């Protein structure tokens, strides 16, 4: 496996939080497309912000230099890549594929090759994430197991079982050492990997549905993330299944208050349009972004301000407030039913979103599209220097 930094070294490399001044989601606009001839499956931006990586239906991973547009192929997976993550120092990329493998790559190598392979799961490896310290990886797969690996040696450290259906995603909490995973049925399990026990079970079954006509379940987390301080868990997926075999269900983000482990918010669209929420990110400025693949073929970026919503639930795009101002408003009550929140801004994407990430300065959103494009969108006013003009590579 790849060499790893120590905790102290890793932490010293972490960049300070990006400035969020002048970021305004209501001004989001398209600035570039990096084209690929096959549909993309997921994407991430490396911690330095120099590269974006995307999986594609041709089994490869592609790296784009976001400034020059240069594209580099990372070949080796024998199936589609479902999930990716980086070591905290940004040196290593980890990819999880449907063939059950976790592969590691050097992020900035001229021609990256697989440095090591973990046969992590029997059946699809749906998720991989580096621990905050960078020394471990966690994965989940269709063998219904959650596993923790030594990132340097590739040896298994912990195996956790309990999910009765396929777990779709697993994360380390950024500070408290716990793991959290969500399965097809919307069951979220919180684990203490040191004690090898499940500490909490959170019901997010709003994120699953049984299709009576076709006699099958659909659901699960299609993306998960923590807010930067670890206080909120966001899970993206579907709800309100009507005919899942035709893609008729609604996209949703479910927010969980980490301290109480209570579901606090259901983040939905302004007007119901069938689709799947394939991406979610909690912005450092406090708003939440969701990326949708619509049933009809288009996409959406949705912006919510959960903290502001409980008091007013009012759109904020007409005010002079920045997203950071809104974040300071009253937090919602934790007791009672989750709050259903509509977005304060919706941005139409030209094609389905299958993955989303922020650039390291948190000003731009990168989207893996189903038409093969890696779209780049900036959450700020267009400038006059031509930066708003779409570019292609």
């Amino acid at each position: 496996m790849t060499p790893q930094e120590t905790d102290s070294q890793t932490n010293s490399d972490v960049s300070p939080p990006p400035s969020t001044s002048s970021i305004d989601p209501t001004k989001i606009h398209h600035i570039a497309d990096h084209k690929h001839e096959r549909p993309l499956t997921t994407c991430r931006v490396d911690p330095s912000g120099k590269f974006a990586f995307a999986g594609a239906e041709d089994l490869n991973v592609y790296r784009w230099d976001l400034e020059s547009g240069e594209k580099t192929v990372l070949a080796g997976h024998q199936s589609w890549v479902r999930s990716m993550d980086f070591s905290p120092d940004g040196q290593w990329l980890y990819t999880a594929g449907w063939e059950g493998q976790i592969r590691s790559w050097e992020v900035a190598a001229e021609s990256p090759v697989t440095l090591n392979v973990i046969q992590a799961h029997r059946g699809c490896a749906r998720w991989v994430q580096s621990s905050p310290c960078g020394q471990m990886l966690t994965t989940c797969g269709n063998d219904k197991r959650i596993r923790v690996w030594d990132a340097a040696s590739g040896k298994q450290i912990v195996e956790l079982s309990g999910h009765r259906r396929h777990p779709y995603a697993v994360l380390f909490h950024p500070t408290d050492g716990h793991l959290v995973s969500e399965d097809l049925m919307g069951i979220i399990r919180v684990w203490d990997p040191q004690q090898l026990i499940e500490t909490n079970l959170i019901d997010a079954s709003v994120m699953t549905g049984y299709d009576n006509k076709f006699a099958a379940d659909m659901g699960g987390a299609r993306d998960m993330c923590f807010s930067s301080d670890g206080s909120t868990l966001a899970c993206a997926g579907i709800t309100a299944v009507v005919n899942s075999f035709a893609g008729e269900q609604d996209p949703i983000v479910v927010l969980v208050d980490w301290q109480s482990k209570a579901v606090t918010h259901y983040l939905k669209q302004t007007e119901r349009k069938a689709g799947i929420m394939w991406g979610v990110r909690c912005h450092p400025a406090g708003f939440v972004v969701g990326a949708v693949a619509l049933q009809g073929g288009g996409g959406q970026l949705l912006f919510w301000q959960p903290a502001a919503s409980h008091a007013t639930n009012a759109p904020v795009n007409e005010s002079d407030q920045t997203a950071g101002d809104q974040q300071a408003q009253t937090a919602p009550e934790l007791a009672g039913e989750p709050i259903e929140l509509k977005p304060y801004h919706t941005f139409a994407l030209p094609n389905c979103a299958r993955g989303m990430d922020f650039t390291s300065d948190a000003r731009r959103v990168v989207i893996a599209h189903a038409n093969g494009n890696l779209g780049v969108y900036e959450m700020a006013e267009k400038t006059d220097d031509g930066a708003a003009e779409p570019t292609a590579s």
Partner: protein
Amino acid sequence: MKRNLGCNILDHMVSRRHFLMGATATAGFGPLLPPRLMAEMKRDQKQILQVYLQGGVSQFESWDPKPGTEFGGPFRAIPTSVPGMHISELLPYTAEKMHLLSIIRSVNLKTDDHGLGRLFMEKGRRTGDFPYVGAIASKYLSAEKNPLPGYIHISTRGLTDHTAAFLEAQHGQMKLEGFQVPANLLRDGQRDEATYNRVNDFRLQLNRQFKLDRAKSLIDSYDASFEQAAQLMERQHLFEKQNDYDLIRYGSHPFGRNCILARTLLEEGATCVKVTHHGYDTHAENFNFHLEQLEEFDQTFATLLGDLEDRGMLDHTLVMVYSEFGRTPKINHKYGRDHWGSSFSLALGGCGIQPGATIGSTNEKGTEVANREVDGGHLFHTYLRAVGINSSDNHAIEGKTIPIGDPAATPIEELLA
């Protein structure tokens, strides 16, 4: 329990409850068929097990994987018990049993329509009112004294095709809605046998009067249904609690239980048993749904196939695993595959079939048949020839002759044992 009579008039004339009350009077709860007769029947009778993957299973995710190609999807191919034969990794248990099956990878129905595809696969003709495979099996394979309906379809929901067409109504499918005891199967405990006999005598009297001025076929439909319901009522033990050993092996989900029932019915001498597994019409989320559905199918089907082999039943039981079509090579923006009848696959095994063969092929990307193209007509002849029915012969119906199989098609000779 539902029977499609192709006639709804009778349903309105005699209530179902009274229908079955009367049936009990005739049938009673007498002993099963004598063991000697049962053994004789089992030895001589050819049987059919149909496993219908409703909605159109993806050939890429089942019998004709194309890993690493443009439309191959995320799943890999795995070796099987037949050297050189690979199938999708979603079927690991079935892969170990492929020496009992053969694959046909070159089916082209030239239709992407559920109904037309299903009818072509079942009737061997694109159009026209012709009987299903199961109805033909019931007519030509069922022993005269077979105590069970000739064509039983186990499905949790249903399609109401006119399966018998011009054949006698008793050859139409008897629909069981899953493994539960059919509604009204049990005799009303409030009535003694004498009462039941009186009710039945009254029913027969009404029947005779009813026949006087009505078409014979309607009365036949009624009588056939009555008799088959009565026969099934004698065999309520078929629906008794399934044992834990089987439930562990087959799975306790509805498809597992339905397959246990199918095996039991075949063991009891049913001529054609069809089990439908729903949930393959995957216009969205094709890969996640195939993971879920085929995981359920795979172990259950492989267990059923193994049981039939262990019990010596494959010598006289044709096994069909089929859909009304396959799924598109192109993967749409919803990670779905749409309808595709132009190049797909099915699996056959057991009675009359060469095991371990691969018939035909598709091109590298799976977009079209590369060689040995066959359609529903060829398949229909093949099914029937496999169980010893001369598919080139004719039905004799009220003085008319109607070809059993489409005269324009022929069996897949190289697949026949």
